[in-house]
């Protein structure tokens, strides 16, 4: 603790005043020669104890009052983060005061009294010294001495746009920043940053506080997204490095929302701490958290989900828009609108939502044209935070899904086998289309080829999926080519039949020695009719493609009898391998392996109608579709991402041999806010890796690939290319987390992550923030509390003294009945006149 008026502390000697008055009274006692001592002494014997107690109480109160008043005038000041617990020490000092007061009365020996007063003086002096010492210490800690560079980081996240009181917290924060700049010295320099999804440097160079800052403050706008303090402070440090003043400070004005705080990533904070260390002087970070609003109504579009991974014109796709109530009270949005590309918006209702709960609006849409489509869901709700009321998602739809079916049965199309069943399943006959409807476009296009005809030169990359059905083996060059095809994003479905040679599959390895298949074929099991049959066990399905078939009412796959199958032995200890479903005996039914950017699926059942009856089941067709879509879904550009400072998106090339030298290494990209930056392209295995810096703003980014025609999504690409239907660019969507709208306050634990690593000070109010920056010791004064205490003590003293006086008077009101004869008459003459009158009357 320090005192604003430290010297007034010497006034604590005033505590001695009541004691001195008491002693003075005693010393100056008027001597009275008294006769009626017997009554006095007897009275004293009776009352001595009570008198002492009364005197002690009054004296203690008076000394306390003097002490409190002096302390209040000294304006004690509790600096934030003081090492000494003054809130304990102050009462102790006051208690010592009281004890000294009491001892002053009790002690009869003057030497004792002097000793006690001396001890008290020692306590006062020690306190004063301690306070002075602390004051020096704090002043040293906070002194700025020289001119300083101050970086003011204003939280410009979405949550700051919520109204808190009169204005939004963002406006409040700007006001505080303005207040701060007004308090700085003329030679100080200021850098202002607005931090949200990205950190905007408002003043590229540190500016003088005497400059035209007012206009600048007026023009500040929030950037939206989430506030990332680590990035923001790091940016502030970079800006400070440019300043020439030796002393540096960073001020963070935020609403203290925990979103984006990264308390779970102490390493990031450690790194930030090291960054700050590299500055000429380590800057002090002053945090000022504005209060979050108390009333808050907010609904947010949490996500847009599609029911299928592969979308085509063949059927309607279900679009589910999830709405989250991120506010504090129940909300009833008017509805949700979904807009696909530039089409007309369609609306759907949403039920009322409780706080923290979500609700779904379901749309059905048929994507008539292949390509990338931008879906934009908007919430029709009048809530406090508008920024999270809409969300985008990019959906890539295909005009056609080309599939290469390699038939290993060797008997051609005439024999009914697994390949035939699969081909039929994947290209349903036209007559299946319902009469009266326009012809349903088929999405899949199957090219069937006999195994021996497959060559290394076969253009696998023209197909989204390759099916190896009952293939005994393929040539080593073909195997190598196929593996490469998968690695660069292709899908491979292996359906081993009776002819399949385990020797080939088990030895099918990649260049680096890894197995290409998810499982060894192992032993072929043939179940005799006498020993029963096996079935697929839908309960064991974990693969997403199979899960859609689990529902018994929709799938009858379990009804199919399996009498022979390969006992697959999944590759052990490989995280890329997963068993997606089993037979009811426990042997694997489906094993999956991701390989590079592609995927390999392997069944244990031949699906040929002789070793099993699965092709006869109604669910067979959707089962095959799901399997094929599952392997074919990969290999596309992933267009939907979370905000990232550096977003990497792989864009496959049209041909495997696309490593052209001299290709453009950067391409233009349009940000959601309309500005155009450049994304870097790095040539990679089977495509290019596009890196977009600062993809933190939610919305749709458009990557212009016109300078790289060899990439699959360039506009000149084949009809199958999924470039944006609307233009020549590839759309990418960045979806913000709806949690930004939740307004969860920072916990102490969260803050301590920062406080531990940085030279951190949290200002409780604007004054403290200003004090901390301009070099005064921040903290809060407690004189008001002391003054309140003093008022209380005054009341107590007044009450006590009145009560005591009342108690004393109680018996003293009755006077002694002792009246002289002479007093009964005013004078003797009166008595005489009365006598004469009576005498005359009798006469």
């Amino acid at each position, binding site marked *: 603790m320090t005192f604003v008026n430290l010297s007034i502390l010497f006034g604590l000697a005033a505590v001695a005043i009541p004691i001195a008055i008491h002693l003075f009274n005693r010393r100056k006692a008027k001597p009275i*020669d008294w*006769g009626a001592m017997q009554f006095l002494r007897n009275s004293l014997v009776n009352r001595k104890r009570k008198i002492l107690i009364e005197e002690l109480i009054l004296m203690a109160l008076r000394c306390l009052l003097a002490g409190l008043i002096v302390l209040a005038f000294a304006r004690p000041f509790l600096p934030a983060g003081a090492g000494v617990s003054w809130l304990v020490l102050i009462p102790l000092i006051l208690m010592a005061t009281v004890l000294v007061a009491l001892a002053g009365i009790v002690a009869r020996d003057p030497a004792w009294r002097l000793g006690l007063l001396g001890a008290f003086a020692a306590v006062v002096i020690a306190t004063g010294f301690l306070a002075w010492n602390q004051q020096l210490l704090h002043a040293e800690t906070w002194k700025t001495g020289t001119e300083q560079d101050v970086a003011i980081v204003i939280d410009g996240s979405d949550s700051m746009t919520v109204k808190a009181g009169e204005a939004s917290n963002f406006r409040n924060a700007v006001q505080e920043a303005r207040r701060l700049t007004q308090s700085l010295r003329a030679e100080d320099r200021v850098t202002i940053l607005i931090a949200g999804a990205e950190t905007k440097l408002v003043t590229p160079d540190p500016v003088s506080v005497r400059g035209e800052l007012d206009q600048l403050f007026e023009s500040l706008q929030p950037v939206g997204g989430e506030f990332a303090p680590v990035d923001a402070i790091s940016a502030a440090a970079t800006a400070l490095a440019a300043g020439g003043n030796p002393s540096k400070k960073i001020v963070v004005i935020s609403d203290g929302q925990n979103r984006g705080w990264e308390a779970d990533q102490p390493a990031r904070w450690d790194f930030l701490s090291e960054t700050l260390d590299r500055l000429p002087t380590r800057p002090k970070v002053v945090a000022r958290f504005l209060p979050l609003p108390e009333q808050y109504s907010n609904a947010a579009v949490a996500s847009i989900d599609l029911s299928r991974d592969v979308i085509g014109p063949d059927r309607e796709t279900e679009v589910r828009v999830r709405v989250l109530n991120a506010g504090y009270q129940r909300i009833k949005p008017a509805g949700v609108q979904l807009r696909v590309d530039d089409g007309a918006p369609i609306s759907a209702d949403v039920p009322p939502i409780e706080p923290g709960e979500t609700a779904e609006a379901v749309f059905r849409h048929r994507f008539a044209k292949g390509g990338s489509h931008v879906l934009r869901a908007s919430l029709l709700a009048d809530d406090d935070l508008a920024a999270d009321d809409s969300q985008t998602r990019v959906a890539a739809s295909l005009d056609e899904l080309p599939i290469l079916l390699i038939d290993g049965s060797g008997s051609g199309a005439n024999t009914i086998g697994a390949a035939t069943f699969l081909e039929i399943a994947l290209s349903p006959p036209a007559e299946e289309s319902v009469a009266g409807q326009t012809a349903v476009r088929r999405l899949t296009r199957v090219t069937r080829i006999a195994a021996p005809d497959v060559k290394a030169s076969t253009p696998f990359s023209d197909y989204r999926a390759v099916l190896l059905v009952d293939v005994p083996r393929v040539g080593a060059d073909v195997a190598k080519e196929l593996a490469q095809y998968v690695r660069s994003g292709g899908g491979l479905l292996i359906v081993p039949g009776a002819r399949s040679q385990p020797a080939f599959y088990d030895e099918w390895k990649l260049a680096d020695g890894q197995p290409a298949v998810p499982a060894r074929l192992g032993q072929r099991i043939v179940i005799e009719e006498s020993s029963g049959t096996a079935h697929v066990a839908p309960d064991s399905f974990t693969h997403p493609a199979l899960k859609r078939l689990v529902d018994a009412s929709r799938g009858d796959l379990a009804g199919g009898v399996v009498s022979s199958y390969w006992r697959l032995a999944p590759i052990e200890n490989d995280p890329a391998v997963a068993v997606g479903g089993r037979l009811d005996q426990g042997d694997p039914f489906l094993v999956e392996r991701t390989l590079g950017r592609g995927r390999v699926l392997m069944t244990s059942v031949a699906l040929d109608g002789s070793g099993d009856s699965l092709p006869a089941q109604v669910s067979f067709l959707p089962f095959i579709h799901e399997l094929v879509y599952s392997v074919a879904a990969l290999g596309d550009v992933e267009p939907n991402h979370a905000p990232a400072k550096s977003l990497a998106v792989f864009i496959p090339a049209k041909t495997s041999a696309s490593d052209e030298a001299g290709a453009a290494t950067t391409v233009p990209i349009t940000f959601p806010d309309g500005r155009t930056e450049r994304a870097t392209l790095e040539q990679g295995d089977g495509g290019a890796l596009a890196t977009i810096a600062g993809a933190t703003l939610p919305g749709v980014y458009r990557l212009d690939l016109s300078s790289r025609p060899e990439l699959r999504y360039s506009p000149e690409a084949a009809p199958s290319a999924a470039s944006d239907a609307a233009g020549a660019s590839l759309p990418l969507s960045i979806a913000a987390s709806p949690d930004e709208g939740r307004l969860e306050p920072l916990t102490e634990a969260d803050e301590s992550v920062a406080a531990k690593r940085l030279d951190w000070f949290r200002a409780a109010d604007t004054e403290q923030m200003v004090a901390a920056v301009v070099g005064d010791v921040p903290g809060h004064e407690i004189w008001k509390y002391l003054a309140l205490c003093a008022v209380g003590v005054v009341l107590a003293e007044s009450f006590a003294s009145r009560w005591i006086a009342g108690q004393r*008077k*109680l018996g003293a009101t009755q*006077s002694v009945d002792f009246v002289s004869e002479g*007093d009964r008459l005013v004078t003797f003459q009166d008595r005489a006149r009365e006598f004469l009158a009576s*005498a005359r009357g009798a*006469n």
Partner: protein
Amino acid sequence: MSLSESNAASRLLRPDALDRVARLELIARGVVEGFITGRHQSPYKGTSVEFAEHRQYVPGDDLRDLDWRVLGKSDRYYVKQYKEETNLRSVLLVDASGSMSYAGDRAAQIDGRPVSKFDYARYLAASIAYLLVHQQDAVGLVSFDTQIKAQLPSRSNARHLRTLLAEIDALEAGGETDMGPIFDDIAEQVHRRSLVVILSDLFGDPDRLIQALHHFRFRRHEVMLLHVMADEELTFPFDSWSDFRDLETPGSHEQLDPATVRAEYLERVRNHVQRIETACGQLKIDYVPMNTRTPFDTALASFLASRR
């Protein structure tokens, strides 16, 4: 009369007081007579009585004293007044203990100074002695603190009065009070039935005092108790810190804030006074409270008047 005796007489018998008494002679006489005769119901009444003067009849006078001749001649009612050759013997007991020297600020002033209880008692004693001797009553004197300090036998001549006044004048207050044993002694010493006039502040053990009063009454003495107290002792008006120094025991003192003990003190004084007054009522002792605030002559005169 020696010079010193004369001085003593003039100092004690305050001229103004005596004047006042003289100016109101008629009443004073009535007072004295009424007091003496009324109080004593003398069994010796009518013997060796010498006519003194006439006085107008007032209701209550004994019809036997009515002067029928005057009534016959002038048709006026006069009563014959006699100079009684008294057989009344009286003893004045004057408390000369230290506590009697308390004066206070509120006491009646004599020579510009508040009179002490002791002076008050001395003046009273002198006046009473003068009045008694003036009507040929025998007056004796005993002054005491813990023991008898001075003693004069009861006589009624004028010479004796001077000696008595000189003795009273020479008294000095000091020492502690212990009335009980002294009163017992005096009760034994005074053989003839007498009027015992006690002038004291009566500080001390009230039980012992009442016991001594019983003794007086047992010896068939008439007792008149003139309780002299200062106003301060009765009201305890002090409010600032005071150091009360014991007048009876030099060096003994109490330092205190008077407000803290006032109630208790007054309660004790009240009890003490009440106790003695009640005891006097039971013993048929004439108890007379005397506050030194009242000028002593007024007090005396009114006291006598009330006992007419």
